[in-house]
């Protein structure tokens, strides 16, 4: 729950749960929106309450969209609201852009308690403040019980591309370094730890956070020596590395001992039979950086809390094109393949 919720109490309302009428577009919709959405997310563009927003952007513009259906909607370290903001902010940052404006759409299953909606709204506001973006247009729909799962959120975002950014997979060459900006697998394991039927006590929290400020600092510092930025969310680091290796027709070689991972997360993965390389992340990125710039890149990362665990995890190579090969902690080698379906827990 948001730290700021105390300072922003929910307004007094004559309803406790959201019902179908709140998505009708009529009076109830207005009551719901006036109860706080517009006030909480207040800014000049949103305040016009028009059908859309008219934006003033300069230069190249990056544009992305993402839908959020996480279950449970509240999880250790965050909730679906801040995830929806950070997810789109980070996708823009991975384009080398400075995120500016978001749209925000809710699809709510009737029966969602207003208190939960309020908490989500406040964390959306906090996440926007932290990332420096504004919600400028949006939509609210309510569906019958059983037709959704509490709340789904879609955000679409635009941002201005950094003048020195040259994010382009085709520029990757053998010898380029792969940097991971934080510790692996925390988000996926935080969600797993509260999924039905698991109930293991853990202190693992999601790593959801905006990456745009660090990304901008890095672009300011090393500019076009950054050849690619990706956030390894679903499918994890292994999937992203495989995609890059396949698309660039180069090999990737990584070392198991260089992978940054928190002991608790590693333990939880071991217990549940999951490979951290395939587990979802929300608050870290993978960067491909020219070898000569990598020291400056890492120094800049380590000076920002978001990148304090940043590490070089591997290198591009002309050998074994399209394959990701990992040197295990005891020196053996194996191919790290792309994930098939959902990673299912093992039996014993």
């Amino acid at each position, binding site marked *: 729950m948001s730290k700021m919720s105390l300072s922003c109490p929910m307004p007094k309302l004559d309803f406790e749960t959201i019902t179908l009428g709140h998505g009708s577009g009529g009076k109830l919709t207005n009551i719901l929106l006036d109860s706080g959405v517009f006030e909480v997310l207040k800014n000049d563009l949103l305040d016009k309450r028009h059908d859309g927003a008219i934006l003033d952007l300069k230069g190249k513009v990056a544009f992305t969209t993402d839908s959020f259906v996480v279950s449970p909607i509240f999880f250790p370290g965050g909730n679906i609201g801040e995830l929806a903001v950070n997810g789109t902010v980070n996708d823009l940052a991975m384009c080398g852009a400075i995120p500016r404006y978001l749209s925000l759409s809710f699809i709510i299953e009737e029966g969602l308690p207003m208190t939960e909606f309020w908490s989500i709204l406040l964390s959306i506001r906090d996440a926007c403040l932290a990332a420096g973006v504004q919600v400028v247009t949006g939509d609210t729909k309510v569906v019958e019980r059983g037709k959704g799962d509490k709340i789904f959120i879609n955000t679409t975002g635009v941002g201005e591309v950094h003048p020195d950014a040259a994010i382009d997979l085709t520029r990757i060459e053998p010898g380029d370094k792969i940097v991971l900006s934080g510790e692996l697998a925390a988000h996926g394991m935080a969600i797993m730890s509260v999924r039905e*039927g698991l109930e293991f006590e853990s202190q693992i929290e999601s790593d959801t956070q905006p990456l745009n400020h660090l990304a901008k600092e890095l672009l300011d510092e090393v500019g076009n020596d950054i050849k690619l930025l990706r956030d390894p969310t679903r499918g994890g680091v292994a999937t992203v590395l495989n995609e890059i290796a396949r698309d660039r027709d180069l090999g990737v070689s990584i070392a198991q001992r260089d992978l940054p991972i928190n002991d608790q997360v590693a333990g939880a993965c071991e217990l549940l039979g999951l490979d951290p390389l395939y587990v979802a992340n929300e608050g870290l990125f993978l960067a491909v950086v020219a070898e000569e710039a990598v020291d400056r890149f890492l120094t800049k990362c380590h000076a920002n809390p978001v990148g304090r665990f940043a590490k070089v995890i591997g290198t591009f190579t002309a050998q*074994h094109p399209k394959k990701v090969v990992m040197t*295990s902690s005891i*020196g*053996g*080698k194996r191919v790290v393949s792309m994930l098939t379906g959902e990673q299912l827990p*093992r039996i014993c």
Partner: protein
Amino acid sequence: MRYLEEIKKTVTQPWTIMEVCGGQTHSLVKNGILNMLPKEINMVHGPGCPVCVTPTSLIDKAIYLAEEKNVILCSFGDMLRVPGSGKSLLDAKAGGADIRILYSPLEAVKIAEQNPDREVVFFAVGFETTAPANALSVLHAERMEVNNYSILASHVLVPPAIKAVMDDPESKIEAFLAAGHVCTIMGTSEYHPLVAAYNIPMVVTGFEPIDLLQGILMAVKQLEAGEAKLENQYTRMVRPDGNPNAMEAIYQVFEVTDRTWRGMSNIPESGYQVKAAYAAYDATRKFSVNIAEAPENPDCISGAIMKGLAKPNDCPNFGTKCTPERPLGAPMVSSEGACAAYYHFSGLLAEQEV
């Protein structure tokens, strides 16, 4: 890397060693150990993958219970993608059946308590390692008077499987790494008669890369010296008399029975079934399910792989007609299956230097 060096120094001739447990197979492949061993040592992969040996008809039965009997079917996640004769549990789930992935059968008892108007069945698959927890779930349900809980038991046992592998006239296996976790429960006494009967070295081995290298070294030393004895590499976990409490729970609920192993046909006295005293918690007795025995897919050579007669990449369908997305047999989908290990971690390059 001391063990690896010592293996290289010790070995003078080719040896074929089987690791029984699928967890060991995965560790060998995942850590690149197969490619590090001297070429004289041929590791073949055993039947120790419970999901792989669960017969097709039992998966069909589980699907039938979930689809036709409105049962909440609970299972370990591994089982879900394994193809039955028509579809997998995952297909049935997508079609609307109430199938839930759990990590513990005790969770299933809790679900039964919370849903008194529904029947809850736990698909109790596994070797001796999961038997105590499954037995405890039955005892717990009895104590809590939860009457809408039952288990669909498909328990299999390691020693009869080793016997079946050795009795195959084509078998070339010269030593075994026995499964450490199974022996943690059951102890090691069952293995002495096997060592004596087949005059074959056997090393109870763990799952970490270092455990496996040490286990292989111990087996190679015996082979080179012409010895055949039972040794225990996994001493930090395995005591000769096992875990008496766990065994007591098993023997209270289960009794030994003949079992059909997928790909390996019927093996006498090779599994557990629920005792008559606990018939109320036995899904096979509780629900009448009449499903025709489904034949195995003739294109799948999983039986030969699990007996150590073939490697996954010997199969003409490996990686082509059979992939984890469209498996012909269970070893391609289980996280302990040998085919899945080769497919995921070797990228179709198993045995080949990358």
